[in-house]
């Protein structure tokens, strides 16, 4: 090839590369499929990102429910359903929001709407709340669930599901030892102590999981923050809870300080531990283990703490719309419809967490499940979220949860001899730092 031709080819290739760089600019969220819906068809297309709230069946059932919505609204709204894996979900949402990609409505974990509301990316749901109120359905939402998603005077999401934590136990093991279900902390410890022998332990404890600590802390009147959004971890009530957690080391397997969730589950399933603190969806796992094992297990009603309090701990997850949507009214219509028609997600989709509406507690998948009955009747009514006693969550709580301060406190209590005062003081300082940084 002649030298001159080579030079021209090189210049052309270099020019092509430079021109291709022009593609790197933030798009306004333009998408040919979305633009087409404004070109005369009259049907608003919205994209719905749903989290996998149940096993593989859940997604299939959810897709059919979306098809049903599309059929009922075929002249006005078309919803595209997409399931987002839990692993890397915050990344996926952040990228979608920042890049303006197709994302109109989603379900999400507890503090996601607050995080995006702080970025001014959330579509307020006050109209949806008003619609429910006008229909007389507002009281159907679990107490406190609507407030949980109130931020700066706006409803940043509608309550979608509730995830309480409880103490499951193997009743057969207690019966064999002549023990009855404990009702107080002292009875709980005594029960665990009596069962701990010959390679069997009273409590299957995952030190790397904050649930045990949080369950005890809230039950005893402690909390991460107070009503005024100040750190509240360094209190006598929390210290008492941590002391009790340290005492429970005697009735757990060696090495529990480093256990993750499934290691504790293994002990419980092998009947080498009688008690375990788990979320509501653990009842599905027990049922799948075997009918025989299901028959052996029960859920404790909330223990009465030394402070005389009975309190449960629960997360609340929401369904939210995004400001980047081109169809805000359609998004609100869909969210209301999805909440009102979601029974099938529990009945057939085996959704793990609880519904956020009281009327849905009568669903057979809940009413016929002995564990879920205890959660519904005894734990949820006294359940509180991580931001308790502050009414309504806010973004800093997301950071507190994300920094795993509860897990840090729990594993330090169980795995070291660090004085409790020092642990509560250190964690309290970290919480305060987070609160101040996120003001």
């Amino acid at each position, binding site marked *: 090839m002649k030298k001159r031709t080579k030079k021209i080819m090189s210049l052309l290739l270099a020019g092509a590369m430079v021109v291709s760089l022009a593609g790197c600019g933030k798009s306004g969220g333009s998408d040919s499929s979305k633009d087409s819906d404004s070109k005369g068809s009259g049907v608003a297309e919205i994209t719905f990102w749903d989290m996998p709230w149940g096993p593989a069946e859940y997604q299939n059932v959810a897709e059919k429910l979306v098809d049903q919505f599309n059929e009922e609204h075929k002249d006005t709204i078309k919803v595209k359903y997409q*399931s987002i*894996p839990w692993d890397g979900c915050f990344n996926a949402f952040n990228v979608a929001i920042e890049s303006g990609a197709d994302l109109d409505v989603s379900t999400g974990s507890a503090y996601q709407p607050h995080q995006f509301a702080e970025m001014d990316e959330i579509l307020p749901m006050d109209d949806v709340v008003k619609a429910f109120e006008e229909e007389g359905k507002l009281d159907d939402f679990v107490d406190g669930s609507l407030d949980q998603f109130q931020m700066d005077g706006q409803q940043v999401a509608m309550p979608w599901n509730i995830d309480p934590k409880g103490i499951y136990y193997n009743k057969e093991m207690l019966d064999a030892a002549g023990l009855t279900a404990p009702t107080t902390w002292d009875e709980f410890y005594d029960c665990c102590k009596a069962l701990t022998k010959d390679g069997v332990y009273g409590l299957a404890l995952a030190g790397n999981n904050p649930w045990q600590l949080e369950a005890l802390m809230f039950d005893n009147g402690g909390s991460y923050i107070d009503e005024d959004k100040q750190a509240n971890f360094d209190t006598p009530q929390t210290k008492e809870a941590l002391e009790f957690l340290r005492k429970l080391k005697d009735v757990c397997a060696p090495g529990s300080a480093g256990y993750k969730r499934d290691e504790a589950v293994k002990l419980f399933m092998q009947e080498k531990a009688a008690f375990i603190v788990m979320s509501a969806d653990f009842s599905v796992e027990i049922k799948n283990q075997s009918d025989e*094992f299901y028959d052996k297990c029960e859920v404790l009603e909330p223990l009465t703490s030394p402070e005389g309090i009975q309190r449960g701990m629960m997360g609340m997850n929401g369904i939210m719309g995004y400001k980047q949507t081109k169809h805000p009214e359609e998004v609100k219509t869909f969210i209301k419809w999805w909440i009102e028609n979601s029974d099938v997600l529990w009945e057939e989709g085996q959704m793990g967490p609880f519904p956020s509406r009281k009327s849905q507690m009568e669903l057979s998948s809940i009413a016929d499940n002995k564990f879920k009955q205890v959660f519904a009747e005894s734990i949820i009514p006294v359940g509180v979220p991580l931001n308790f006693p502050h009414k309504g969550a806010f973004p800093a709580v997301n950071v507190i949860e994300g920094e795993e301060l509860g897990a840090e406190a729990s594993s330090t209590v169980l795995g070291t001899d660090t004085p409790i005062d020092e642990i509560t003081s250190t964690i309290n300082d970290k919480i305060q730092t987070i609160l101040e940084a996120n003001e």
Partner: protein
Amino acid sequence: MNKYKKLKATAFYAVLLLIGLLINLPIINMVGSAFKSSKEIFTNNNLFPHHPTVENFKNVLERTPFFQYVLNSLMVAIVVSIIVAVVSCLAGYAISRYAKKIKFFKHYSSLFLILQMFPGVLLMIPVVVLLSDIGLGDSLWGLILVYVSTNIPFCTWMISGFFDGIPSEIDEAAKIDGCNVFQSFAKIVVPLSSSGIASIIIFTFINCWNEYMLANVILKSQDLRTLPLGLQTFIMQFDTDWSSLMAASTMTIIPVLFFLIFMQKHIVSGLTAGAVKG
């Protein structure tokens, strides 16, 4: 003496076998767990089930479009591997033979290594914007485009190193015999670099097969999911369907295993190509 040598060799291979088993313990555990029922998965601490069952495999195939995930992963990995191999070989040859002769491009190949230090997570937003603008958002071709661009730099650097090991006198000999530059590259240099080319193909294939982060932000439709995304179907917020996950994971490694076995002989043949004189 012979007996001593045999004993020594036996002991040596026994130790290697033990080390191999230890290294592969997680995979052996995964395969064993795939054949455990949901009852045994938590109650049986042994590597292998007491009562093997194929129920988990049936569950995976019936409850999810698993074969679609396999096809998607295969398509992406094969197409990317082929494109990367072709482009990297061409670029690597140019760097090996010509770039070093030009003062400005003397250390050009080092720039490829510097590019690897760029955190991939920072690319995600511009990549999604770019793909959306050109209509390739939520598509396998969009993912292929991204994988090609992220794998080319390292593979080019790697293959140029292989080409450096082939004396340029061979090119000159080919030129004397009447080959032009491309013929010299295609007929002489590439066959001699088969082990290097096999290496970059394996590297790229495995990268594409295992990659999760970019696939997660680019692909959203269930029928477009690659295997790493598809495996997430069995992972809920706090709970994991371990039986199905282990079965799906076992099926996931099968294509890669066959691929590696197929490619391994090319690496070996490349390594031994010049071993015997004459």
